């Protein structure tokens, strides 16, 4: 008799045992999510035949007595108690009388599976037998994962079958199962053993430097309450081939499948170094092998997938690793997690689980037919690939289980098909001695969908060239207006004559097919004439920006050799090339013949940034751009009524469709003034004035445009975005403010502007916004590093093919050959490697994911960081340079250069010197915002540059004296807010030196306007870029004239210190009344008055009080800059204060004290009749500090009131008439808005100062308690005055001390409350 068959008789007095480590893992997981029933594992066996029910019940009873691990209760994180009454005896359920015995049985089982168990009390294992009919049964077995794992479940099931068979048919009785304490003791012994130390050491080494582990999907890998499963059988020939491969390689087929599943995973995460999870039974070679309990471990299997070498060699390597891992497989995965600091679900120890189950789980019962169905095998955190069965029996299934929180239903199905296909193909490749490289990731079906169906874009296009089509339009639309610029316009006929005349002159000067004519003109009518004339002459136009550095221009001219430059009369000469200026252009054609163009003639050459420091000249042919323009015209249904705005600089290829598309449809083109494209306010004005139907924005500019108050409510036909990523938030913000279709386009200069489109129209809820589908005659491929199509949802390189591809990079054959490669899917055609990463969505739309190389996009412009590095390295003292795009503040991308210097030390001013040097080679948009000099560049263990260790640049101010004047202080504060740089700033600090760039400049202007009510215009900032200069400009300018009426006014001299208080204007819109209170709050308490915008007759009045409050809240939050915000308001100001508190809370700002000076909710006024005539004047008196009801003799006329105010020496009396009219207007507006306002709820405390003298006796029914439905709590303080005097000198004596105390109390309390 063998040792293990002598069953240790459990000591009945010892009922308490510790948990196994595997059980502890499950216990923790379940206790995090106690109501989750996914830890119930279960299956059922359908039994057909004459089951001996009594014998079966006996078999289950014997099993229950042997398997004491099944009857435990878990009373704590390390205690299990064997509970006699929890032994799983067979429960019989007779379903024969039911109308649907099987359906009811299935429902009962499902209900049981879905019921979470109480580990401390409920029986954790259950055995049931449903009788469905005379010879039909269902045997249901359910165990909590605490007491079983896959192996233990097999033990239990087979053991019951074994006992049953021995009883009814005299089969072998077999050995009894082993008691739980054997497993617990064995584990205890292991934990203290030398072997466990060796195992720990092994894994420490094995996991050293493991790259961050990813799953197939981003997101938290924590099991839902159920999982999705798709099961499919592997084809018999795959089974055969697998076995053949196993035999020839002498590797186990199980290891082959595990390794191939790993390779499959690697294809989906675009990495060769991957880690998958492999379940490990954890009891081989141990007496615990026959203990039914939870012992399973999951080992991380690190694989380095080799695509290039022989597949067989790699499989052998992988199997070797698995063998070594298994030898040390007792070391717990939970421990590895702890050692690596991978706690919580975000960071993982492994990606997918790959599980091989070679044994048939089906119990064989003598004389009966059985079929097994799995109901649950425990949690699925992410995705599990299970291969079950025996290839020798040609019966091998693949089950894919997925977490429904991470995977959509279709994805599970796709993985099952794709993995089965991949395994089959890989096995064949291995047998044929090939490498993995030759194995496709996708199935044939997927391949044809990805490559053909999605790219089925064939569409007839005219074979006329761009110049011919323009000429056609000149005839068709002769009398229509073609072009407008700055009050001048041209008809199609005029444009025809002018361009024909110039084309003749150009032809005379040598312009013709394949000649290049450079253009440097600013935006103007002449510019459009120039471009068309060049095309009509048969030449290609080449836009150049004279603002770019001379060196760059010289290189471009040297490589492109234009025959002529069309430039402004007074522009600098470009080398020896003749400049032909508009005054010299002929205006009437002579009728001479012009050069002919063909589809293959070059139409334009646009230079883009190049990685080697050499700009790249992209040559686009007529057929390519005609395809793009004709697609756009027809796809978006452009017609003669369309007005397109040309505002994109011509060196950016978006300008190409802006220039020409209107002419294709007989519409008109409006040319924006030069530089207007940087000014959102000017844009909004032009769009309204010119009735523009179509406009393009780079998304960052669209964002600035939407922030511009003047853009609100604009209606157009369509807005196009391209050039950088259109975010879903921006799309949504767009549709909140503007009525127009929004379309997202994508394409590099190398493929005639755009190659894909996506309607980001209202109602589109895609997140992220796709770049969409290919345009006509265009193909988009998403391929991996080996040019194989990647599956849906997987990141890959985006390639483009079709008629829109550029001809070449001018004069750079090598580079052309490198980027325009042979299309592997269409013989004889080329495809362009965009360098962009993308993935295909389930509906076929392409998502843009970013750049794959060193190239970046900043504010719509493509920039090669290498070109900047080259420029910096050319500085004589720089030894090394790295350039990075940083986003140290959310949404603020800046180029930062890092350099090391000869001798290692930086002189003072070295940074500035390097920047100046780089500026000689680089255009402004490529200049770094900062140069950081380092002793050495940070490197990782492999000696490679570690970009993550590059320090954030410090943009620090401090030049010159401290700000003194009000405007200096104001500008300094705005700089600080907008640049998020280190203060304090001094008067000589320069906006651009501190990291400011053009979009931040737009923001600065916006806030300047919101604070002062006046905007000097963005051009002023370029001239007056220091604090001192800009402040002086404001002192001189219009801002000073409206002093006291600006939207935000500083009410006291306090600068920094305590959290600011914002005082909201009462009905009249001004905050002067708060002066006394503001000063009384102390020298360390900044107080701001928020005044009505509508005081300025040019400003649009808000439509609702809530709109007004939202706008105020936004401005307040900007000024407060994340400090706590206190709000105070008198009368209507109090209503605003409450509404602002609601919005600030929504914006996640810290709201402090909300103090109302005798203010009452709108409900009190809603039903009151509109105040009669004279109400505004009465309000004016009140604002002036007089109680109008106390002046019954004063006639309510404008003159009388003004005279009275002047005589009473009220400051109001000195206001210009326009301002007083503004106030009257504001009073009327506010009275109206108050009546329409519905309060939101502010859940915080509110402090109410009641005008006790009015309220004690009055019958107005105004009670502070009416606020209760809209606020969290109310604290009422009585002030012995009337309403009209609530901000006067006497009121200050009462209110200020209480308010000060409340502010301090709130801040202290808040500070305390913030402590953990």
């Amino acid at each position, binding site marked *: 008799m063998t040792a*293990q068959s002598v069953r240790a008789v459990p000591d009945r007095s010892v009922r308490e045992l510790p948990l196994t480590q595997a059980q502890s893992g499950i216990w923790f997981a379940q206790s995090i999510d106690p109501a989750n029933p996914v830890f119930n594992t279960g299956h059922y066996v359908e039994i057909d035949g004459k089951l001996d029910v009594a014998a079966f019940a006996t078999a289950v009873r014997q099993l229950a007595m042997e398997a004491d691990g099944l009857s435990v209760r878990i009373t704590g994180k390390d205690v299990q108690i064997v509970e006699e009454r929890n032994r799983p005896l067979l429960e019989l359920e007779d379903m024969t009388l039911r109308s649907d015995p099987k359906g009811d049985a299935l429902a009962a089982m499902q209900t049981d599976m879905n019921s979470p168990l109480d580990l401390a009390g409920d029986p954790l294992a259950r055995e049931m037998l449903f009788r469905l009919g005379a010879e039909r049964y269902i045997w249901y077995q359910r165990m909590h994962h605490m007491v079983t794992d896959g192996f233990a479940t097999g*033990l239990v099931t087979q053991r019951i079958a074994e006992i049953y068979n021995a009883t009814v048919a005299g089969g*072998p009785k077999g*050995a009894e199962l082993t008691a739980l304490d054997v497993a617990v003791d064995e584990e205890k012994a292991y934990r203290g053993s030398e072997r466990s130390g060796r195992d720990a050491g092994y894994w420490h080494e094995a996991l050293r430097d493991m790259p961050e582990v990813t799953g197939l999907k981003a997101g938290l890998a924590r099991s839902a309450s159920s999982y999705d499963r798709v099961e499919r059988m592997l084809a018999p020939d795959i089974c055969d081939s697998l076995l053949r491969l196993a035999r020839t390689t*002498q590797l186990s087929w*199980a290891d082959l499948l595990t390794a191939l599943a790993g390779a499959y995973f690697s294809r989906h995460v675009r990495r060769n170094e991957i880690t998958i999870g492999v379940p490990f039974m954890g009891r081989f070679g141990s007496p615990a*092998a026959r203990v039914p309990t939870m012992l399973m471990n999951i080992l991380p299997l690190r694989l380095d997938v080799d695509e290039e070498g022989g597949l067989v060699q790699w499989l052998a390597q992988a199997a070797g690793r698995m063998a070594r891992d298994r030898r040390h497989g007792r070391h717990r995965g939970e421990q590895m997690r702890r050692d690596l600091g991978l706690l919580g679900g975000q960071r993982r120890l492994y990606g997918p689980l790959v599980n091989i189950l*070679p*044994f048939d789980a089906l119990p064989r019962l003598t004389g009966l037919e059985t079929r097994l169905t799995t109901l649950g095998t425990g949690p699925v955190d992410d995705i599990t690939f299970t291969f079950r069965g025996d290839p020798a029996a040609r019966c091998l299934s693949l089950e894919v289980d997925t977490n429904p929180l991470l995977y959509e239903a279709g994805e599970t199905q796709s993985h099952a098909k794709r993995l089965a296909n991949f395994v089959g193909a890989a096995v064949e490749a291995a047998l044929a001695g090939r490498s993995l490289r030759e194995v496709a990731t996708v199935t044939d079906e997927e391949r044809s969908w990805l490559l053909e169906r999605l790219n089925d874009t064939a569409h007839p296009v005219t074979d006329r060239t761009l110049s011919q089509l323009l000429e056609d339009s000149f005839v068709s639309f002769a009398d229509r207006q073609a072009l407008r610029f700055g009050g001048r316009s041209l008809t199609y006929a005029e444009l025809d004559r002018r361009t024909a005349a110039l084309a003749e002159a150009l032809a005379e000067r040598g312009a013709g097919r394949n000649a290049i004519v450079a253009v440097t003109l600013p935006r103007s009518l002449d510019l459009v004439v120039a471009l068309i004339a060049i095309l009509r002459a048969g030449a290609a136009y080449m836009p150049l920006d004279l603002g770019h550095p001379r060196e760059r221009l010289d290189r471009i001219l040297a490589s492109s050799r234009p025959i002529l430059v069309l430039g402004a009369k007074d522009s600098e000469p470009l080398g020896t090339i003749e400049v032909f200026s508009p005054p010299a252009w002929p205006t009437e054609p002579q009728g001479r013949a012009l050069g002919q163009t063909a589809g293959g003639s070059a139409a334009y050459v646009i230079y883009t940034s190049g990685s080697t420091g050499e700009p790249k000249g992209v040559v686009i042919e007529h057929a390519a751009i005609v395809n793009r323009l004709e697609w756009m015209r027809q796809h978006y249904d452009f017609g003669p009524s369309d007005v397109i705005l040309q505002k994109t600089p011509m060196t950016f290829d978006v300008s190409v469709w802006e220039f020409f598309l209107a002419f294709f449809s007989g519409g008109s083109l409006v040319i924006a003034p030069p530089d207007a494209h940087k000014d959102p306010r000017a844009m909004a004005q032009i769009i309204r004035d010119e009735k523009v139907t179509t406009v393009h924005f780079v998304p960052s500019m669209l964002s600035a445009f939407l922030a511009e108050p003047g853009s609100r409510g604009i209606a157009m036909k369509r807005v196009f975005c391209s050039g950088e990523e259109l975010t879903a938030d921006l799309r949504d913000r767009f549709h909140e403010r503007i009525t127009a279709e929004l379309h997202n386009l994508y394409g590099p200069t190398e493929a005639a502007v755009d190659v894909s489109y996506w309607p980001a129209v209202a109602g589109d809820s895609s997140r992220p916004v796709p770049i969409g589908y290919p345009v006509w005659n265009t193909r988009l491929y998403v391929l991996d590093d080996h040019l194989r199509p990647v599956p849906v949802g997987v990141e890959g390189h985006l390639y483009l093919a079709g008629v829109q591809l550029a001809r070449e990079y001018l004069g750079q054959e090598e580079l052309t050959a490198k980027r325009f490669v042979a299309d592997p899917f269409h013989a004889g055609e080329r495809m362009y490697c965009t360098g962009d990463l993308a993935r295909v969505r389930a509906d076929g739309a392409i998502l843009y994911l970013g750049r794959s190389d060193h190239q970046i996009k900043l504010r719509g412009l493509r920039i090669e960081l290498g070109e900047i590095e080259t420029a910096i390295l050319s500085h004589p003292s720089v030894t090394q340079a790295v350039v990075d795009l940083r986003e140290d503040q959310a949404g603020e991308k800046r180029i930062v250069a890092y350099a090391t210097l000869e001798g290692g030390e930086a002189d003072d001013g070295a940074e500035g010197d390097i920047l100046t040097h780089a500026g000689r080679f680089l255009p402004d948009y490529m200049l770094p915002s900062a140069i950081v000099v380092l002793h050495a560049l940070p490197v990782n263990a492999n000696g490679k540059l570690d970009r993550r260790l590059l320090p954030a640049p410090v943009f620090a101010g401090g030049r010159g004296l401290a700000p003194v004047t009000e405007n200096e202080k104001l500008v300094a504060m705005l700089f600080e807010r907008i640049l998020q740089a280190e203060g304090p700033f001094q008067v000589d600090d320069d906006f651009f030196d501190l990291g400011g760039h053009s979009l931040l400049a737009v923001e600065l202007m916006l806030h300047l306007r919101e604070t002062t009510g006046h905007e000097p215009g963005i051009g002023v900032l370029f001239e007056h870029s220091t604090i001192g200069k800009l402040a002086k400009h404001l002192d001189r300018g219009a801002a000073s004239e409206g002093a006291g009426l600006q939207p935000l006014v500083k009410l006291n001299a306090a600068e920094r210190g305590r959290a600011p208080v914002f005082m909201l204007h009462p009905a009249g819109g001004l905050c002067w009344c708060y002066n006394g209170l503001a000063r009384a709050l102390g020298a360390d308490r900044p107080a701001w008055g928020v005044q009505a915008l509508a005081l300025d007759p040019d400003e649009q009045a808000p439509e609702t009080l809530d709109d007004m409050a939202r706008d105020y809240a936004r401005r307040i939050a900007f000024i407060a800059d994340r400090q706590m915000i206190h709000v105070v308001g008198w009368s209507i100001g109090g209503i605003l204060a409450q509404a602002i508190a609601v919005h600030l809370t929504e914006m996640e700002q810290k709201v402090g004290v909300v103090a109302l000076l005798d203010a009452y909710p709108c409900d009190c006024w809603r039903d009151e009749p509109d105040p009669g005539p004279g109400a505004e004047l009465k309000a004016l008196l009140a604002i002036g500090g007089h109680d109008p009801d106390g002046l019954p003799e004063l006639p309510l006329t404008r003159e009388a009131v003004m005279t009275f105010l002047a005589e009473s020496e009220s400051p109001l009396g000195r206001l210009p008439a326009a301002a007083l009219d503004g106030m009257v207007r504001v009073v009327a507006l506010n009275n109206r808005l108050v009546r329409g306002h519905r309060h939101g709820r502010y859940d915080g405390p509110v402090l109410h100062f009641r005008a006790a003298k009015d309220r004690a006796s009055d019958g107005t029914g105004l009670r502070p308690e009416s606020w209760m439905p809209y606020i969290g709590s109310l604290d009422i303080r009585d002030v012995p005055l009337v309403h009209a005097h609530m901000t006067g000198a006497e009121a200050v004596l009462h209110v200020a001390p209480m308010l000060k105390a409340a502010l301090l109390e709130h801040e202290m309390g808040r500070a305390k409350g913030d402590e953990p």
Partner: protein
Amino acid sequence: MTKPLSLDLMREDVAAMIHIGSAEIGDDDNLMDLGLDSMRAMNLVLLWQERGVDLDFSQMATRPTLAGWWQLVKRHIDEIAEARS
């Protein structure tokens, strides 16, 4: 047809599975120390099933030595004989 299972055949199968010479495996050597692991042992069980002997993997796993396994085989054969008689 496959050969009937014998102790020496088992030794050869194990040796092939762990890539060592069969002479190197003693009857009482712990096969885990020689590099056998659970996955390979499962493959052996499947292989021996093909040779007509249905061994219980969990019993094999409790004591992975050739001698121990041969005892299981013999008992299995005896039990079948007993059941048939």
